[in-house]
């Protein structure tokens, strides 16, 4: 895997004022790999995820995507972001556009696809996430789980090399979590490269190639799910797992 790295972070540091939220982060994600990032609140896992497409700037270190370093700003950065899809905790569907228009917008604006072509692809993707009948609704008319599936379809419409998920199920009602996780499992099976920040341990066990455990801005463990959940090495991870698995 290491020979074909898609995302490579080396010595990444970030501060919020005096708070050192990312401390010497080294992380490599291979092509087709699913990496789940877990950890307590404030451990820096969301920041790590957002740094990969530069929604968060970093103070030092390097982040490379498919062999090229992240550009600073402007058009080059926009081009790179088009290659990396992102799914947010709060969905962030464009509130003034229909479901179909949400998915078509970036392919038309960024990839300069024709309207018919973009619409056809958008309908295919909606069918794939099981929402083919909702194309003409507005985001506010959908449930949270449906909105998040549309958001995944919107990200997929750009044919990204990798997908970043920033707590995709944390804002959902419990009964809607599974419909979103199922779509994500399917993507993982199809070989999509994914970085997933989540609290869903079941998903981590069943879909991840690696589990990265973060605490206080550092990567504490980086292992297979099997190893991590059955025999965590660090006290911090043992403590965390005992709190979330025993209730």
């Amino acid at each position, binding site marked *: 895997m290491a020979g074909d790295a898609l995302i490579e972070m080396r010595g990444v540091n970030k501060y919020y004022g005096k708070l050192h939220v990312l401390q010497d982060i080294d992380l490599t994600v291979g092509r087709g790999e699913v990496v789940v990032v877990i950890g307590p609140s404030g451990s820096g896992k969301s920041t790590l995820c957002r740094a990969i*497409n530069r*929604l968060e700037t970093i103070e030092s270190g390097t982040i490379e995507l498919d062999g090229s370093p992240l550009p600073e*700003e*402007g*058009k080059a950065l*926009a*081009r*790179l*972001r*088009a*290659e*990396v*899809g*992102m799914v*947010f905790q*709060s969905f*962030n*569907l*464009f*509130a*003034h*556009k229909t479901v179909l228009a949400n998915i078509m*917008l*970036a392919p038309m*604006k*960024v990839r300069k696809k024709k309207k018919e072509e973009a619409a056809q692809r958008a309908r295919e993707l909606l069918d794939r996430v099981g929402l083919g009948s909702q194309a003409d609704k*507005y985001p*506010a008319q959908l449930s949270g789980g449906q909105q998040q599936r549309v*958001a995944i379809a*919107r*990200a997929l419409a*750009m044919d990204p090399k990798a997908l970043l998920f920033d707590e995709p199920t944390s804002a959902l009602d419990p009964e809607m979590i599974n419909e979103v996780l199922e779509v994500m499992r399917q993507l993982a099976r199809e070989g999509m490269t994914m970085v997933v920040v989540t609290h869903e341990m079941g998903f981590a066990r069943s879909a991840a190639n690696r589990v990265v455990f973060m605490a206080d801005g550092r990567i504490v463990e980086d292992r297979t799910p099997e190893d991590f959940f059955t025999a965590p090495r660090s006290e911090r991870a043992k403590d965390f797992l005992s709190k979330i698995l025993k209730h």
Partner: protein
Amino acid sequence: MNVLLDNLSLYGDGLLGTIELTVFASLLALVLGFVMAAFRVAPVGSLRAVGTVWVTVLRNTPLTLLFFAVVLGLPRFGLVLPFKLFAILALGCYTSAFICEAVRSGINTVPVGQGEAARSLGMTFPQTLGDIVLPQAFRSVIPPIGSTLIALAKNSAIAGAFSVTELLGVYKPLNELGYSIIWTFVWIAVGYLIVTLSISAIFNLLEKHLGVAR
């Protein structure tokens, strides 16, 4: 009543002058205001600085002083225009500072996540602003922009002091002709009401229409 009927063309010219000043200065203010608001939220530091200086200088200068600066200042740099154009320039630039701040406050009502989602899809700053943020900000900026343009209509009276034909200036010749000052001003006030209530009506309509759309 006589004062109006006897001098219908004088009142008419004044009203037309005020309408002309209001319409053209409003257009200028809207264009400049949106551009400056875009500058103020731009990722480029120098653009943000231009926007901030623009707003700070124009919003904090008394309008009369600005008129003097334009009418007396610009000709020194070789720019000689009709007084009416100078007046439109001064009014438009002055008001654009207020429009800019109204638009910016509207932009701030749009959740940050909307812009982040657009950027994460590879959209550039102008695309993000034009396709995602401004359409959603628009609804909440309609009322303050309406108020600002009403203020502009009334501020246009200052142009009268710089020999531009407008409504308030009508009182001078009428006063010399000996008409009752009270009735002279009552009809001037009615003229302003026609202009300002029209602006209100337009913005109420806009608000209703855009209230239906998402």
